[in-house]
């Protein structure tokens, strides 16, 4: 070995070393060339962004100087919003044009089920409509939109928005759940549009008041509602008929009034629902009495807290609230129903496609705590196993109408009110909106106004009504609800005779064909009354953490791992174990003594 090493050393001191040095120098040269090439490419990629800002001054002076000799007379003053969209867009267009900006580009992103494409296409349509106004007024300026709609929930989109913000690659306008407003407003990612909204008071007053709370954080506006939904309690009519045939009375008639009315008046409470559900299981009319959505869909269950008269936050202190009496009653109802075989113990882990929806559409439960969007979901997804053919297929609109009756989420007990819960989708504007356009630092206020006008136009009653019908969401504006209740207009929509740009028309053609029918339109119109009872979960950055704890607690009581009393202790200990959450939460009240259920 040593000898060999010696030979290596000997041979290496001349040719080897020289060769190695050359190889090393050549290698370093190659690396330098690669780095230099990469740097040149990187600089070229940056160049288009730099060019407009560097070359803008001459471009900016051209339009103002060339046409007239006296620029001071023709340069318009910086616009302010007046509430008249035609006037405002013309003023903004003229101002930007005078500053050398002939075209402004905005990006919009949204997420949702495949039928919710108008969450982004409505902004495309809005730009078309604004461009039309500009053209009619001979303003040399236009807006272009880059839209990006992705299927699925909005949570990933929200995370992507946050990660992209640092590099200013985020969308200018985003359609997402209102639940992200608190944390994004807190981080400064969202534009405070309170002043704009105040200027457009006529526009904003047409929105349902309860939904406006969803776009406010600490008293300031950070978005405009885009759509909403309600969470009705669905009742299987065939199970109700079975109970009637078995001599157990007619659930649909309560004290001489229709069930819907009795729920609304607070005469049917969760005690009543429990009794109906138990009877339906005991008589063998159905396997389960109550089913509800699983783990991540906790907002449905939060309705129990409101139904038992509880709160989730204190508006005076801004703190989250664990309302112990209401939370205890909710957990007790779940625990009791699971012990009595009314609800499955492993409800929170059921599979959507294999267990939950097939059970609901096949009548394996009396009651389903669902959402308005299920009405059309059952018509488009093959959850139903046809007993005649043995094949799985979607229900028809007629079947859904025949099999399901719906009411508000009943009051917890007598003396309290029924509720529903909404999680509106909203349009938010990024605080750096317009960033991709020239002279951004100088003109950003104007770009922000322009982004707001795009959202205002995208909220046009017809666009909002179309979105509601084709995606089975509830309208957020009264004017939209009026359109939905107008058979003539709906007929026009079914034939796509509404004035829309070609791009948008093509984008929704197939969806309109599949979803616009009298039954669905009537459902939306009928269900809209629920918005008067709607509640929202808190717009608080730490609320998701508290909601996760509630979800775990429900799972534990359903499985019998904890009694409701133990679950309350669990919730308290979890809140107190997280110093941040502990400081932001008030635990209020005690477990009620002497309270019984049912």
């Amino acid at each position, binding site marked *: 070995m040593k000898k060999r090493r010696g030979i290596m050393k000997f041979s290496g001191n001349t040719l080897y070393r020289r060769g190695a*040095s050359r190889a090393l120098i050549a290698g370093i040269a190659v690396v330098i060339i690669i780095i230099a090439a990469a740097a040149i490419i990187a600089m070229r990629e940056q160049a288009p962004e730099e060019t407009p800002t560097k070359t803008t001054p001459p471009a900016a002076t051209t339009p103002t100087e060339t046409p007239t000799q006296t620029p001071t007379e023709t340069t318009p003053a910086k616009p302010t919003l007046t509430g008249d969209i035609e006037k405002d867009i013309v003023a903004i267009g003229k101002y930007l044009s005078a500053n050398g900006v002939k075209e402004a580009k905005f990006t919009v992103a949204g997420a949702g089920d495949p039928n919710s494409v108008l969450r982004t296409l409505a902004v495309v349509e809005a730009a078309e409509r604004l461009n039309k106004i500009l053209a009619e007024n001979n303003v040399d300026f236009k807006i272009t939109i880059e839209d990006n709609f992705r299927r699925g929930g909005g949570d990933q989109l929200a995370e992507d928005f946050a990660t992209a913000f640092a590099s200013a690659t985020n969308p200018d306008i985003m359609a997402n759940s209102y639940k992200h407003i608190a*944390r994004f407003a807190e981080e400064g990612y969202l534009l405070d549009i309170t002043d704009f909204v105040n200027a457009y008071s006529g526009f904003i007053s047409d929105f349902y008041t309860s939904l406006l709370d969803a776009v406010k954080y600490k008293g300031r506006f950070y978005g405009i509602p885009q759509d909403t939904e309600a969470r009705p309690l669905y009742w299987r009519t065939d199970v109700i008929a079975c109970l009637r045939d078995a001599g157990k009375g007619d659930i649909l008639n309560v004290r001489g009034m229709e069930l819907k009315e009795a729920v609304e008046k607070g005469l049917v409470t969760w005690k009543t629902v429990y009794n109906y559900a138990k009877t339906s299981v005991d008589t063998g009319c159905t396997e389960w009495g109550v089913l509800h959505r699983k783990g991540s869909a906790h907002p449905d269950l939060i309705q129990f807290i409101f139904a038992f008269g509880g709160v989730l936050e204190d508006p005076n202190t801004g703190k989250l609230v664990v309302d112990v009496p209401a939370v205890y009653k909710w957990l007790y109802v779940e625990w009791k129903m699971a012990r009595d075989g009314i609800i499955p113990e492993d409800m929170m*882990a*059921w599979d959507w496609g294999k*267990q939950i929806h097939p059970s609901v559409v096949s009548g394996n439960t009396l009651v389903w705590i669902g959402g308005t969007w299920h009405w059309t979901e059952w018509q488009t997804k093959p959850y139903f196993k046809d007993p005649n053919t043995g094949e799985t297929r979607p229900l028809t609109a007629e079947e859904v109408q025949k099999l399901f009756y719906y009411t508000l989420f009943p009051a917890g007990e007598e003396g309290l009110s029924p509720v529903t819960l909404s999680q509106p989708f909203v349009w938010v504007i990024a605080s750096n909106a317009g960033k991709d356009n020239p002279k951004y630092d100088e003109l950003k206020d104007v770009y922000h106004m322009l982004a707001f006008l795009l959202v205002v136009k995208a909220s046009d009653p017809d666009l909002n009504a179309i979105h509601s019908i084709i995606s089975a969401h509830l309208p957020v504006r009264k004017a939209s609800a009026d359109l939905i209740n107008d058979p003539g207009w709906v007929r026009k929509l079914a034939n796509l005779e509404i004035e829309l740009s070609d791009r948008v028309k093509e984008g929704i053609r197939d969806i309109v064909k599949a979803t616009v029918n009298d039954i669905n339109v009537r459902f939306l119109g009928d269900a809209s009354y629920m918005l008067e009872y709607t509640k929202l979960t808190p717009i608080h950055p730490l609320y998701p953490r508290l909601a996760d704890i509630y979800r775990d607690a429900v799972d534990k009581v359903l499985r019998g791992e904890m009694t409701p009393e133990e679950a309350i202790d669990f919730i308290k*200990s979890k809140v107190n*174990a997280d*110093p941040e959450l502990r400081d932001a939460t008030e635990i209020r009240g005690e477990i009620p003594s002497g309270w019984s259920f049912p």
Partner: protein
Amino acid sequence: MRIPKPNPIWFFLSPALFLIIVFYVVPLFFSIYISFTPLQNWNLARYLDQISLENYERLFYMAMNDPDVTKVVKTTIVFVTITLIFNVLGGLILALSMFFMDESLSLPYRLIWILPRMTPIAVYSLIWYYFFLGDESGTLNSLLLRLGVIEKPLAWGNSPELLPESAWAIIILVNGLVGVSFGMVVFYSALRSLPREHVIAARVEGASAFQMTRYVLVPQLKWHIIYVTVWQLLSLITTYAHIFLLVQWGAIDKWWGSPWALYVFNTAFTTSDQGFAAAAAVILVVIGGILGILVLRLMGFKKLMQEPKGEL
């Protein structure tokens, strides 16, 4: 004046070093730095200059007071320990059994064991999701119901009567079946490269398969065992992909089914609390580092790296 000649070693090492520095060392130090900031919602501009020990204090407080964090710690210890044993011993047994097999049998056998590694994570996890599904349509429930072993379907990954062992068994099985093929490939390759004379000589001497394994084969696999053990240990400490999907889909209990790596992931990407997640990750890296060094020492890694004493 003599210009110092650069060492050619650096030339050959530089591409790998560059990648390691850019993709491992820099992020590692960046993560350590982030762990001292209250970074959340990816707002680097706002939080990066706020240095404090708050995340570590909060983590310590939660470890002491939050029963779910205790569950995560216990799960991590059990999961890493048992899966490691399963992967190393399982890989060794598989490699040895294939070594004694006829090649025509050994090849399909190897392929079957390597299939879980080749299957996309989502597909592989979905198979297990339906296997352990809690109603009668779940594969395991359906099988046991037909055999009359159980009377009603069981929620394998969630039922309070079966927890925590059932959740642990599921995550160990799901990860173990992927991990075992790594050891198998390494050990089998090593066995195939052993001098045939040793095996022939042992056979001639009348050694049984067990004796040959015990006295001839395994002793020659020592370094491979060390390598696979350390590699698997470090992988298991940081693995979460398969488990993430099973927890996400509700197939296993959220806390009894979550090792520390998954807890870090969820904290960073679901609750968007990146500073806190970075602190939890740093703890994991430190523990991983200590354990790695400990295992290398215990198994005599220094000897492996020593120069051979004999002449070549």
